[in-house]
């Protein structure tokens, strides 16, 4: 099948791919590029498991077409750590056990990164509102909130 040729930047690397006009960016990332960190939890933009950052903005990649990534900057969970050095949010998620089954975790980390980029010193309430677009069925969110608070304080001190 022929497809649309797309040139984009993913986690800082130039990437070119072919995709179908009706294919979501989530499917392109997962099925064509092997970046399976973003997950499909609902396909309707309600759960945030597919969260990525597109041109500096938090989006659900299930609601973006693969073709729309043309000429834009995509950041996914796979680019969050710097080689083997974890991002402070990743480090704090481990230290606080802020995850259980792990399926929603990449989405939470991306959403939290976006939140802290906009608000480096959020209150608990602001964190809870800021992450309300992401569903987690395992943790009850308590340890996620603690991990984000802790990471924010580390990042402010850095």
């Amino acid at each position, binding site marked *: 099948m022929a497809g649309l040729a797309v040139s984009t930047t993913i986690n800082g690397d130039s990437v070119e791919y072919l995709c179908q006009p009706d294919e979501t960016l989530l499917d392109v990332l997962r099925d064509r590029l092997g970046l399976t960190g*973003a997950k499909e939890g609902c396909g309707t933009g*309600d759960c945030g498991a597919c969260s990525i950052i597109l041109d500096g903005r938090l989006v659900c990649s299930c609601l973006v077409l693969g073709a729309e990534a043309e000429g834009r900057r995509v950041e996914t969970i796979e680019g969050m750590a710097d080689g083997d050095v974890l991002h402070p949010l990743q480090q704090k998620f481990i230290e606080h056990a802020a995850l259980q089954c792990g399926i929603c975790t990449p989405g939470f980390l991306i959403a939290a990164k976006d939140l802290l980029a906009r608000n480096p010193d959020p209150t608990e309430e602001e964190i*809870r509102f800021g992450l309300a677009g992401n569903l987690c*069925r395992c*943790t*009850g969110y308590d340890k996620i909130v603690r991990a984000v608070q802790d990471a924010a304080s580390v990042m402010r001190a850095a």
Partner: protein
Amino acid sequence: MGIEGIGARVARKEDRRFITGAGRYVDDMVVPGMKHAAFVRSPHAHAEIKKIDVKKAKAMPGVIDVLLGKELKTDGIGNLICGWMIHSKDGTPMKMGAWSPLAVDRVRYVGDAVAIVVAETKSQARDAAEAVEITYKELKSVTEAVDALKKGAPQIHPEADGNLIYDWEIGDAKATDAAIAKAAHVTKMHIVNNRLVPNAMEPRAALGHYDKAEDHYTCWTTSQNPHVARLVMSAFYNVAPENKLRVIAPDVGGGFGSKIYIYPEEIVCLWASKKTGVPVKWVADRTESFLTDAHGRDHVTEVQMAFDKDNKITALKVDTIANFGAYMSLFSSAVPTYLYATLLSGQYVIPAIHANVRAVYTNTAPVDAYRGAGRPEATYLLERTVETAARELGVSPADLRRKNFITTFPYQTPVIMCYDAGDYAASLDAAMKAADYAGFAKRKAAAAKKGKLRGIGMSNYIEACGIAPSAAVGSLGAGVGLWESAEVRVNGVGTIEVLTGSHSHGQGHETTFAQLVADRFGVPIDSVSIVHGDTDKVQMGMGTYGSRSGAVGMSAIVKALDKVEKKAKKIAAHLMEADEGDIVIENGVAKVAGTDKNVPWFQVALAAYTAHNLPAGMEPGLKEGAFYDPSNFTFPAGCYICEVEVDPETGVTEIVQFVAADDFGNIINPMIVEGQVHGGIAQGVGQALLEGASYDGASGQLVTASYMDYAMPRADDLPSFQVSTSNTPCPSNPLGIKGCGEAGAIGSPPAVMNAITDAIGNNDLTMPATPQKVWAAVRAAKKH
């Protein structure tokens, strides 16, 4: 305990792959030549299938094949079964209707699978599924269990007259009625336990691969118990003989019960792979999950609790109708019987108990165990009733509970269970202290000044976990034994692999199980690997549900470790020319007690495999297996206190404080246990405030089939939780573990509802207590 041993707050070993996006779930799996499946599902709640025309669908782009139920039957694929036999009180066996993996001539709920389409891509499969033309003759449907029992209700299965699956009882009806007749006070309630959708964040998925050259099948599936899946798929569904079927449950994104069962899709994907000659992958979309994952709860109950003049409970009488949906799911029959009615004594001395349970077919999704399974329903009715009784009797809810607590153990209840250990007053005291119960009146007055209604409610739950002694569950009708297996393999350089039949889908077994081994030999947890979830690697196992992995799964590991340690000591004694009884293994070293003689652990392991210098007659190697069958259930218990503020103008409830004081016995990793409690409470608060599966009575359509319509708890809906544990070790297993996975979901709904009804002064309120319902209840209370 050591920094990595039992009791340490060790960070989870599995988390690095998850936080880097490197987790490997079924939908992340790719097999060469893999194609994609979509299921054609019934749009009707109840209908006859008159005709299926697949011509147009087969001609669609990318379509490889469209397969139907009659072909499945021709190939000898069996019907789905319920694996726990329950007999009605008249002695007749439960009435199980036929459940074909693909419906042949009748559909019984919206979402019932009728055909599978296999195509090159996911979207081509879905497009072609819409092009399958099915002519239905619609029939009358029924969605509420109470209505399905009425005369003239649509008959759903020919096997079950009047839609009644069983009419079961437990306890002493005569003694219970007599006690109620002479009671000083009887509290009566009508209790509805709302239907829930489990909503694991990973949708169910299956990848079936038939390898023709090897005549071998592999199924990757989102399962909590891959070995049970293999057993059932081969023994009952004739998909493949057990020796030719490998089932792999890799990283699994939450289960909460819903991934225990073997569903039509994994059977059909395996079969379709053989029919089409290509590996077939199916991943549910969220609406399919809502429609077809086994739902939870859905009980309607009349309850009477009798008291004598000293406010001692004298009897409990319960009459429950349980909605089973359109088909009997794998363990459905056990949930409202042995997982529910056997816990109706709660934490209380109740001399006479009688429960009657009717299980009923309706035109809805099958209902089965969901986090807590039966025990939340028992706890909800008991704790709402006790709290209500306290209000009616004009006594403090805490005092009424305390007065009736069981205080001597073992305690034989009138409903089978024998509680082995517990200290219910300790949990109550801890919770009341943490919640500053005594200061509530002041906080209520302060809230009133802001125009808010403040309320407090408690709940004292008990559950039976660690399921269970195989002979006991066998005598009660279970089709399987509920032991667990483990194998400990010490490698030649001293690293250790533990193979377990438990399955981790969020519980952190890779960490806690490794802590157990690290604790035993004093080796770093990084040198211990936990292997699970693959029937080719682990011979047999019963899987993870019912808070059993610690109490049962880890006990099996302990047994295998005992054997390994015994052999390692023999080898070490031989190497050091010492007496076996003088050897201790700690900090990664085998020592002769009281001397400075020692051999590092890795040298003991190496000696076992070089076999150059072993005691006479000893086999080489250091690898031992064990099966552990528990001698009793375990009985976690605790006290939860919830404090709410209700805005009477909007009906919005805010949880301002939530305290949990649990007794889980001994704890391996407190950080993981806290997380389990948090998650359980979130699901329980979800049930109390937000969640409810709702079917349209006229059409049988599920109107809550997306996240737009089904309210999941989000971060801004929940408070922080204050959790603590006290500890009476479980006497029946070697680690003294009781289990912690379900407690939160069991204990929290009645605490929340008791708090709201206390706040608004109106006890007539059902879950979920949505703002609209609470607002109406506030107004109704004002009128009285």
